[in-house]
């Protein structure tokens, strides 16, 4: 069975007025289905860029990215959008909720772009996702009326609603107090236990400790890739090429 994600010699450079700024210098990495992996690194190390490429929001300059056994190099914008709509989802540090929309409307949003879920079933899916983060009683609230921790749980419900193969969490506790942050990480932990693959991008050691595997990135290269002592998952196939 192929890995969920396989990266080989991945490079990424940005060009500004023909000035090249290299961010990733050749990343080799494999991630299997069901893993809870944290990508750590200092600011500017390239961890967010790596997440954007893995989440099909950006493209590598060179190297190979294989997703579910398929090379993604030849895919056009619509193909990548289709993968984002059905296979991956995101939880952002800034939540990115629509402030004038209700919790339910925010969670319904990804279903507008999901071709496999009928319109009539959308609300059922959304309410199920909201219930799974414990916010059923807030479904009719405007997202602007929620606390930071609740907002992030709504963002997690939104990420869950399409039942994606992979969830990216980009500094999910960065804007939260420690109690709310803990709640959010516990929700992510539960999701992983339920079979969701989670890639966590963070610079906080305590947050990263929730993951089974921690990949350190520095200056666009993987510095280390270690399994967590705390929560090593039986059978997780962790490799560093």
């Amino acid at each position, binding site marked *: 069975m192929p890995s969920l994600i396989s990266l080989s010699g991945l490079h990424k450079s940005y060009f500004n007025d023909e000035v090249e700024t290299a961010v990733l210098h050749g990343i080799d990495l494999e991630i299997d289905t069901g893993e809870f992996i944290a990508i750590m690194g200092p600011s500017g190390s390239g961890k967010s860029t790596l997440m*954007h490429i893995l989440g099909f929001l950006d493209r590598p300059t060179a190297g190979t990215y294989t997703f579910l056994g398929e090379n993604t190099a030849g895919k056009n914008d619509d193909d990548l959008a289709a993968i984002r709509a059905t296979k991956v989802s995101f939880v952002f540090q800034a939540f990115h909720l629509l402030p004038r929309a209700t919790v339910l409307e925010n969670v319904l949003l990804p279903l507008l*772009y999901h071709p496999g879920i009928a319109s009539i079933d959308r609300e059922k899916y959304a309410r199920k996702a909201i219930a799974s983060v414990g916010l059923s009683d807030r479904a009719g609230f405007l997202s602007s009326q929620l606390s930071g921790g609740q907002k992030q749980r709504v963002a997690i419900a939104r990420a869950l609603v399409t039942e994606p193969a992979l969830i990216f969490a980009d500094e999910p506790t960065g804007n939260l107090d420690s109690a709310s942050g803990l709640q959010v990480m516990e929700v992510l932990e539960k999701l992983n236990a339920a079979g969701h693959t989670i890639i966590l991008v963070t610079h906080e050691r305590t947050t990263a400790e929730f993951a089974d595997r921690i990949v350190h990135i520095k200056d666009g290269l993987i510095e280390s890739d270690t399994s967590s002592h705390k929560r090593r998952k039986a059978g997780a196939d962790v490799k560093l090429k």
Partner: protein
Amino acid sequence: MKYSDILTSAFTALRRNIGRSTLTMLGIVIGVGSVVLMSSVGASMEKVILSQISSLGSKSMVIFPGSNQEGGASQVFAGHDSLTFEDIEHLEKLTTIDTIAPIVFMPGPAKRGREESSAQIMGVHPNFFHNQKMSAAQGRLLDAHDNDRAARFALLGPDVKEELFGQSDPLGKEITVGDRSYTVVGVTKALGSQFFQNADDRVYISLSVARQVTGQKYASYITMLATDSFDVAFAHVEGLLRYRHKIENPKNDPEKDDFIVRSSEQANAILSSVSLGLTLFITTVAGISLLVGGIGIMNIMLVTVTERTREIGLRKALGARPRDILLQFLAESVALTVTGGMIGLIFGLGLAWIIAQIIQGFLSTYLFAISFPSMIAAVLMAALTGVIFGISPARKASSLDPVESLRYE
């Protein structure tokens, strides 16, 4: 993304920004509203004039004393002495003229006891009733016998009858005009307005009596019916009057004549040109207002795209294709203009209806009319404005980079 979802998203976005949406669509509301209003008033006026023209028939002609002014304006002189009764005797001999009826205005007022009417007093030849297709609602019209023996009879318009007699029967009763009394022999059927004059507020006296009373040797104006072709009759009348009045006018310069001949066909032609002018005017107003409204919408949509950059990034992260974003913002722009167009339509029709109620107070034949082609064209133009002025902001939104958009502060 399904089209139904795109539409729902568009209207939801407008609802969430209801204040801004309302102000943005105001230009379109005013533009479409004014077009619908003007086209409705135009259609109503056209109906009024057409009904008056058709009620007179295509062979009806009127000669006024006076002259045509530069630029096509007419100057009618009711007291001018250019149309003499000798002219009328000669006109009667023209084979192209069927019936001719001179009219002499008399000074009023008409009175019955203490009741007084401001009605127009007209000394008319009996042919007048034939030319105007008039009939009596009560009693009879004035006839040739009355005229020949200069009988002191009066025929009342229904408004005068109401004013002087109320509900009582006027037949056989006396009224006075000036210092003379007249016996009422009939009441005419209601005519309503003729060329914006109340034709029911008149008292008719035989022409012979009016001439005796006023001593007038000229007609205030003349009505005629042509036997066949209006064009030939028109040329004959013009030629005869120029000959008798010694007017050299080989180039048919209407300013040189001391009379004006008007026909229902001419009125039709004038109406057509007025209609065309009105249509061009409405189109210009619509074009300008939709252009201004469209520029306003483009500005607001560009601001909206900038404001919602992070939302665009989020939608892309959630799987929206560039096409989905483009259609969503285009739909918002079209929803703005179409909603504005529909509100303008209702607003314009409402105002046209109110105006119709007001005008009906003094012009009973004026009816509220709707110009469906103008209404449909106005709303379609509004929708097209939304597409044209919405495309640039929508393209900008669809081309935004998702990563950059999510980072936008």
